[in-house]
């Protein structure tokens, strides 16, 4: 009844090359993750060279495999290599099937992703040499690679979702790579919260699509809806299936667009991208210059037929893209840090790419993505040497480099320049708007929590009806300093009855479990001020 992953490889019309290589492009990075994770978990000593070799071999092989897949497509004149790996799990009313697809859309993406990850891996061996998180970086890079290959080679939206989430997690963890500083940690959390909120769209869209069409498998180009015609609007690749109902199509398309907004940092959820540059430069290059931010446009390209059936969603895509490009190009002009400037430049280009897809200029968008990925990742990789490069260039030229962007000063009317300047300095006020948007929900949740604490204290007969303060639901960045309300200090209650066990646990507790006598609950922990040796000897 139940099949497993190892079950069937549907050969069909696919060649043995395709059925062998296509699963390998996903399985190899996954195996690389498993090897590194097990070694880390069990504390095996590894050399940096061995780790780099693993990553290089994995992604070198994946690049080679995808190149062969591309050649196979070219030589056999087939549009799609479709491999069904079998059923992962199923219940009487539902089956989750692994399906991978290599076509003219996925092969260039998979090839460039593997090549770039391999190159970044090689470069990082020097950049992160003897860095304490060296092995963690490579583990997360490999996890990211596995997620990306899953997304781009997925034959169904369900598979896309798995890869999509792995990319998001590895991205957040790499932003917080320098975990001893608060800033990167806050920004990693913000990126993850943004991803998580927007990924609701991908999961809901996938589920609704499954209900409307009966399957979330990509369909071959021959059965897709008529595409937007135009010389640069070819759509000769597998597509997300289209529901018959226009309402369903629009709903699903808008949900997918929501997922794209988060992953590709489109407005209004774009604030995480400049902050993401806190991560190591190589990961910034590969994630936010090359691959991760382009997964949103990739999903839109896969959903081209769906957008055709949902004009409202197509309009939304164009508007979001243009708004992002405009916002990012304005804000990027005032950045004083090269990585931030590059982040906004990247956002500008991604916005333009999204708008191109919305306008149906798909081939242009693909060329734009591949070109932008190569150039931007190179720029970010080189960014730590910016001053050196500039001085070197100026010495070679014998004069200072000319100031760029003067044409904008001429184009924009003088009276518009001050408000635009303020807009840019404030980052478009997007963070403020997001905070205002989430504030009512946060206040409501805080009120509910307060009420239930009081009710619990009343019912439980707590020694004092205290309610410590709550933290803000800070969806815009998790700034602890700004997101905190200090807990109200209250008069200590009567001494708690002492039981047979540890007295620290018996100290306090209102019915709701909150501490009575202080701003933080008193529990069995040693506390920050406890002697370390005491913690070690008693806590274990």
């Amino acid at each position: 009844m139940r099949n497993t992953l190892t079950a069937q490889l549907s050969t069909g019309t696919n060649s043995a090359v395709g059925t062998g290589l296509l699963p390998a492009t996903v399985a190899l990075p996954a195996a690389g993750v498993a090897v590194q994770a097990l070694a880390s978990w069990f504390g095996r000593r590894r050399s940096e060279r061995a780790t780099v070799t693993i990553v290089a071999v994995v992604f070198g092989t994946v690049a080679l495999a995808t190149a062969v897949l591309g050649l196979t497509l070219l030589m056999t004149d087939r549009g799609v290599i479709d491999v069904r790996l079998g059923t992962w799990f199923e219940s009487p009313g539902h089956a989750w099937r692994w399906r991978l697809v290599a076509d003219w859309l996925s092969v260039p993406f998979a090839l460039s992703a593997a090549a770039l990850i391999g190159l970044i891996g090689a470069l990082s061996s020097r950049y992160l040499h003897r860095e304490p998180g060296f092995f963690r970086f490579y583990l997360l890079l490999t996890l990211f690679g596995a997620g990306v290959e899953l997304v781009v080679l997925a034959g169904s939206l369900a598979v896309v979702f798995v890869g999509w989430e792995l990319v998001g997690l590895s991205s957040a963890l790499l932003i917080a790579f320098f975990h001893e500083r608060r800033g990167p940690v806050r920004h990693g959390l913000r990126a993850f919260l943004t991803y998580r909120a927007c990924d609701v769209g991908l999961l809901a869209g996938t589920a609704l699509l499954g209900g409307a069409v009966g399957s979330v498998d990509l369909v071959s180009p021959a059965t897709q809806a008529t595409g937007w015609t135009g010389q640069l609007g070819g759509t000769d690749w597998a597509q997300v299936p289209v529901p018959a109902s226009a309402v369903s199509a629009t709903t699903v398309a808008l949900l997918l667009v929501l997922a794209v907004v988060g992953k590709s940092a489109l407005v209004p959820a774009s604030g995480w991208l400049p902050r993401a540059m806190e991560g190591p430069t190589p990961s910034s290059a590969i994630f936010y210059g090359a691959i991760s931010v382009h997964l949103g446009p990739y999903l839109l390209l896969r959903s081209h037929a769906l957008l055709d059936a949902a004009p409202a969603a197509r309009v939304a895509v164009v508007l979001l893209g243009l708004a992002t490009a405009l916002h990012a190009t304005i804000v990027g002009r005032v950045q004083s840090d090269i990585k931030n400037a590059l982040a906004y430049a990247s956002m500008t280009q991604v916005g333009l790419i999204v708008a191109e897809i919305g306008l149906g200029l798909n081939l242009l968008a693909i060329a734009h993505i591949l070109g932008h990925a190569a150039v931007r990742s190179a720029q970010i990789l080189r960014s730590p040497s910016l001053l050196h490069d500039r001085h070197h260039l100026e010495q070679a030229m014998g004069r200072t480099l000319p100031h760029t962007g003067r044409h904008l000063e001429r184009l924009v009317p003088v009276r518009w320049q001050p408000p635009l300047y303020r807009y840019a300095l404030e980052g478009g006020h997007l963070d403020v708007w997001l905070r205002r948007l989430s504030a009512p929900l946060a206040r409501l949740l805080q009120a509910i929590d307060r009420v239930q604490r009081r009710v619990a204290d009343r019912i439980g007969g707590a020694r004092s009806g205290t309610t410590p303060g709550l933290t803000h639901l800070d969806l815009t960045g998790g700034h602890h300093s700004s997101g905190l309300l200090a807990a109200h200090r209250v008069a200590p209650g009567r001494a708690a009855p002492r039981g047979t066990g540890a007295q620290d646990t018996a100290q306090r507790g209102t019915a709701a479990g909150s501490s009575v006598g202080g701003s933080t609950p008193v529990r069995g922990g040693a506390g920050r001020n406890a002697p370390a040796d005491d913690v070690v000897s008693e806590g274990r």
Partner: protein
Amino acid sequence: MTVSLGPLLAAVLLLLGAGDLARRRLDARRARAQATAWAGVALAMIVVCVPLAGLLDSALADAGYTTATTLAAGWARWTPLATGLAGLVAVALAPMRTHTPSTFVHILVVLATGLAATATGEPLVIVALWALASAAAWRHLRDRLGSRGPARLFALHQVSGITLATLGVTVLAVHDAPSWARTLGTAAIVAAVTARLGLLPLHLWVSGLVESAPMGLVVVFLTAPTAPMLLLADGVPRPGTGLLVIGAVSALLGSLLGLVQPDARRGLSAVAVSVPGMVMCGLADATPTTVAGAVLAWQVYAVGMAGTLMVLSATEARRGPMTITAAGGSFTRTPKLAVAFLLLGLAVAGFPATLGFVGEDLLVDGARESSSLLMLALIVATAANGATVVRWFFTGYTGRRDHLGEPDLTTRELWAVTAALTALLVGGLAPGGLVPNGPAPHRPGPAGGTHHTNTATTRHAP
């Protein structure tokens, strides 16, 4: 009444262990070692039963014992294993600072009742086991925290729940009861399940318990499968829309409340309200897909939440309470604690590449067929639960360079956590055989007659 001998014998072993611990006056360290050994043996007994079930069942049938089977089959097939593993994690990671020898005695008793509940489909027996577990837990809470506060809240909820469950089960057991009585009986069971799981509005005891009580005891009580087993028990009709609404609201509101909590224990207690809410949605919806998803999600919840809460407890024993105002921790110093917290928590939240994702996918897909709004509620709850876990991972395990010299996972802790992670991650890679199945749960509504549908007592080899 059919009885599964594997979990029953494991429960008996645990009771023997509890008696042995109570009789010998051991210090906390030795008590923990003994309790870990007893929990390990009980789990090993269940594990051994898995491959031998077919053989032993044939032998039992040949010997004429038609009401005995080795392991439960059907929906609850893997539940004893998940419960046993959660119990092992609870005792192996219990910090001595917060766990006395008597705590381990009570943990073993509560764990034994949880395992015994998986051995039978008889509702009255399950309610009796629930009462025994509640009494053991309450007694310990009263001794440690006093009779007021969290202990009183806990007692009020559990006594109400047990009373309602007894009434409901008794009414439903009457064959010629009028339809209104059967409706009332079903409603009583729904209310009882709500109280047992801590679903809204009867959830107030959960956060108090998680914040104040020894975590090992909390874990074995929260993850005991009493409520799901009661709903899947013989003669209990489909709970219907009432529990569906309660579950959906609990899942959604619990997950959102988790985002605004000022300390990790309260944050995870909100997740501990949200995930059982999702499970109840699946059981109430009662399609094969949602029931499979619900039971699997419960099993993942048992193992994952046990691990997450115990890792949190172990961390707090090393360096103090994990609050939003505290200064975080050094990831470099405790990488395995941090990674274990993250992975176990993400499994509970249904993150891809874990077994939790399988349960969540089945739940979402099944819910979509019933209602798009229900599906959306489950998806949002899943997203928010994941955000809560990652928030506390970053808040509690990163952000500092200095440290107190706190150790990472000890060897005992490492192996317990590794077992839990293996179950959740390897199970996530090959979940085919772990997805629960059974006869279609088309049970009559409250007004109709009831018949045995509990696959937990269906006799067939696993």
